């Protein structure tokens, strides 16, 4: 994100309470103009509530929401230049596809003919022109999804909200829609705020991701940043696959933290703000950042015994017993090079760790 980029949606210390239940606890997020921004988290984390507050379907208990410097928290949904793609699409069943897409334009005051014309153009963008006069119920799930997208984009909103729009589609269709959404976002230049519980979907599409849990933003950053440098246990565990080890920090000197995890295992990693000497914290190591060998090959290595190899097509995951802590997973790609790193169950091996692969977590 460049510094000059204006802020499209600025959420400032927003709180949402339903009776005694606090759904959002002082959330502050700034979403840049033309950004593909994702709210990612498990169900019940408050991501959909936050999206509905931006759309205007939920009122704000405390705090403020700005759209390009204009406070919108008090505006009704029909006065906000923000449109939504609903989870189950909510296409109007009594209207044709063309009427659905033209609805927002007509409500903005355009003539019926003009609304139809622009709706037709929108249908071309999502390649559904030939279905313009059908009813939504006559379309497949994927086609309905595109109609919902076209309907929300047609009035040219300043921000588009997408509430788990791909969750009803099968895997293959979802993958192609992910790329198409990203493509449409770049083409239209509209800010997208995307809600999902699928971390892979979030990593694939987003410029930036806010990982949410229990009504709070746990971490905010680019896909790579969140994946490589998770801030806490929740983020490390929720995004991707990881090994979580309980460690004690023995000393921090020369920009390296030395930790031990019992059973004689010791390793060093980059220190992290908030984790001091003597702390008992968790360490996250991604399975693909490790490799096995019969002799130690890197400065940082652990000893373990192979328990099992699991073949999953693209990769081979080796499960190891370190003699301490939970079982450890190491991944090797299914290639000639990767297969050299696969050992038979029962063999004692060294688990080599690239420098920077281990990450200390603030609990």
């Amino acid at each position, binding site marked *: 994100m460049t510094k000059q980029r204006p802020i499209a949606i600025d959420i400032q210390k927003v709180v949402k309470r339903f009776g005694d239940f606090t759904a959002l606890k002082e959330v502050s997020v700034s979403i840049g103009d033309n950004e593909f921004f994702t709210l990612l988290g498990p169900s019940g984390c408050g991501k959909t509530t936050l999206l509905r507050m931006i759309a205007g379907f939920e009122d704000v208990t405390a705090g403020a929401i700005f759209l390009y410097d204009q406070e919108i928290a008090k505006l009704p949904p029909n006065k906000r230049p923000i449109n939504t793609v609903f989870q189950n699409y909510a296409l*109007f069943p009594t209207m044709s596809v063309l009427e659905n897409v033209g609805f927002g334009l007509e409500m903005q005051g355009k003539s019926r003919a003009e609304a139809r014309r622009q709706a037709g153009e929108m249908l071309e963008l999502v390649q559904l022109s030939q279905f313009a006069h059908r009813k939504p119920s006559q379309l497949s799930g994927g086609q309905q999804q595109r109609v919902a997208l076209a309907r929300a984009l047609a009035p040219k909103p300043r921000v588009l909200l997408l509430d788990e729009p791909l969750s009803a589609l099968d895997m293959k269709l979802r993958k192609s829609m992910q790329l198409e959404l990203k493509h449409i976002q770049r083409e239209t230049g509209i800010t997208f705020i995307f809600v999902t519980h699928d971390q892979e979907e979030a990593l694939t599409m987003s410029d930036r991701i806010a990982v949410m849990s229990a009504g709070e933003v746990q971490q905010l950053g680019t896909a790579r940043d969140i994946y490589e440098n998770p801030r806490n246990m929740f983020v490390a565990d929720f995004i991707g696959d990881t090994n979580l080890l309980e460690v004690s920090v023995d000393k921090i000197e020369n920009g390296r933290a030395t930790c031990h995890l019992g059973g004689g295992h010791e390793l060093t990693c980059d220190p992290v703000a908030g984790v001091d000497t003597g702390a008992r914290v968790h360490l996250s190591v991604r399975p693909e950042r490790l490799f096995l060998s019969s002799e130690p090959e890197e400065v940082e290595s652990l000893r373990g015994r192979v328990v099992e190899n699991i073949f999953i097509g693209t990769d081979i995951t080796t499960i190891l017993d370190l003699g301490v802590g939970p079982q450890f997973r190491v991944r090797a790609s299914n290639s000639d090079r990767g297969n050299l790193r696969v050992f038979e169950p029962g063999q004692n091996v060294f688990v080599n760790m690239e420098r920077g692969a281990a990450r200390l977590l603030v609990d």
Partner: protein
Amino acid sequence: MQTGAARFDFPGFKVLTFLCLFILYAPLLVVTVYSFNDSRSITTWGGFSLRWYVDVFTGPDSAKFQSAAFNSFSIALIAATVATAIATSAALAMVRGGRFKLRTATFGLISLPILVPEIVTAVAMLIFFNAIGFTRGYTSILIAHIAFCIPFAYLPISARMQGIEGVYEQAAMDLYAGRAQAFRRVLLPMMMPGIISGFLLAFIISLDDFIITNFVKGAGIETLPTAIFGSVKQGLRPNIMAISTMLLVFSTVIVTLSWLVSRIDRTK
């Protein structure tokens, strides 16, 4: 898997079925057939004739029946319209309200009058009109009919609304529609089959009501059912059968229509 035919094919099933149908429909069949009887007698067949139908429109009682029919149809039309409007608002409030605390209680309160014995409602209304000093006549019948038609209009509308979630209205408002536009352009067309069905049901319920009407009508005004009853008290004449048959056909058409309309699913 057993076929539908095999599952119901136990000994005596057909006999039982025909017995039930006979008990249900034989009286109606007799009335219908004898309405075309040329004889003055209501029990002996004297050949086919339409004379009693002519008699209904031109005979000595025709003026009485015509004014009763006018009252019945005008009251049914107004009562069904007003009751449907009220029932529609109630159903809308239930949808917009989402899962509010007294939702079930509210639904019960609206539907309950269907289960109250009609005679109780009739007495209660009579006492009510007397207590407030309301002169009984056309207006008192109309008010009573509006009241007892509401739950009948409400049921098909609310059944239709089950499939209409609040999200459609939200989607409309998200696309810059005001509340009124969201209702008129999105919700109303989706509710329409239920509304028409509810209206037709209320219309038929009002048209053939006897007990409540008889209590609250006052002297000097008749609806078709009370006029028929009055006529029968002075002796059964075949023209009553002709009127009854016409009412039967009309009711059957309306109820069939109501059922057909209620089956149109516009939420999918």
